[in-house]
């Protein structure tokens, strides 16, 4: 079975986030002067062939800890693990 996994990666609390700060400092110029605490992270998605949802989730967690994130500086959250249609044929394509 194929599962689509969505993974969110963010900088750890307490680490300076220069990208977030840069975005935040640009917002007032566009009139949004009421925004604070901006953070910039990243989003990964992938499909994994696995026995079941639990196995897919477990593998995704291992991948996140060993490679997709650096636990020294980043936190992560698995947003979703869902059954995927066979790759490349779905009308949704590479969303």
């Amino acid at each position, binding site marked *: 079975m194929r599962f689509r996994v969505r993974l969110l990666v963010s900088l750890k609390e307490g680490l300076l986030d*220069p*990208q977030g700060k840069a975005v935040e400092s640009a917002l007032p110029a566009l009139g949004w002067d009421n925004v604070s605490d901006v953070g910039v992270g990243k989003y990964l998605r992938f499909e994994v062939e696995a026995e079941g949802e639990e196995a897919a989730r477990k593998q995704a967690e291992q991948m996140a800890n060993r490679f997709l994130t650096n636990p*020294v500086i980043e936190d992560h959250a698995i947003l979703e693990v869902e059954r995927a249609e066979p790759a490349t044929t779905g009308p949704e394509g590479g969303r």
Partner: protein
Amino acid sequence: MKPRVAVVTFPGSNDDRDALRAVRLMGGEPVSVWHADQGLAGADAVILPGGFSYGDYLRTGAIARFAPVMDAVRELAAAGGPVLGICNGFQILCEAGLLPGALIRNRGVAFVCRWINVRDERSGDVLPVPIKHGEGQFVGSPDELERIEGDRMVAFRYCSPDGALDDAFNPNGSARGIAGVRNRRGNVLGMMPHPEHAVDPDLGPTGGQHVFEWLLSSARAAVSA
């Protein structure tokens, strides 16, 4: 006998040639090694050079750490052989777990490219060396930073021309002004500044010679041990 120093070229390395040249100028025998090689061509020391391996995709150094040659780098490090990571090489060593901490985007967001000074935390020497990086802000958890300080693993800190520590001379916001760290054993060194660009008196300051002297003397000691 000249110590043999391997310089690893990853896809995206761009300071490998300067590193090879610096080894030669400083009296070593440079040997170029490809990231997909299984060994280090019999080298006594290894340099992971600066650049942008794998386009800095995912995180700086995150993909290069899995290169086939890295097994040999780990073996050399475990045997006490000298390993020097410069800039992207430092990032790779951190990602590989051979050095503590991590490197994130500079405090000021902008890429910095200029001459700065670092203080050797053992000898007190002030070394003029260039930096050129976008992600050179050294960070670690409070516990990790305490451990790094307690075990005297800080190799270099950014400083004023006369060696004073002040945040005004910290070009990227690195924790405690850390520009380079060693492992506890002292044979693995990572640094953001570029010593390989600062060894030739015809081209400017020579603060980098100090680092290559350490690398070559450690390689000689490892060979004769």
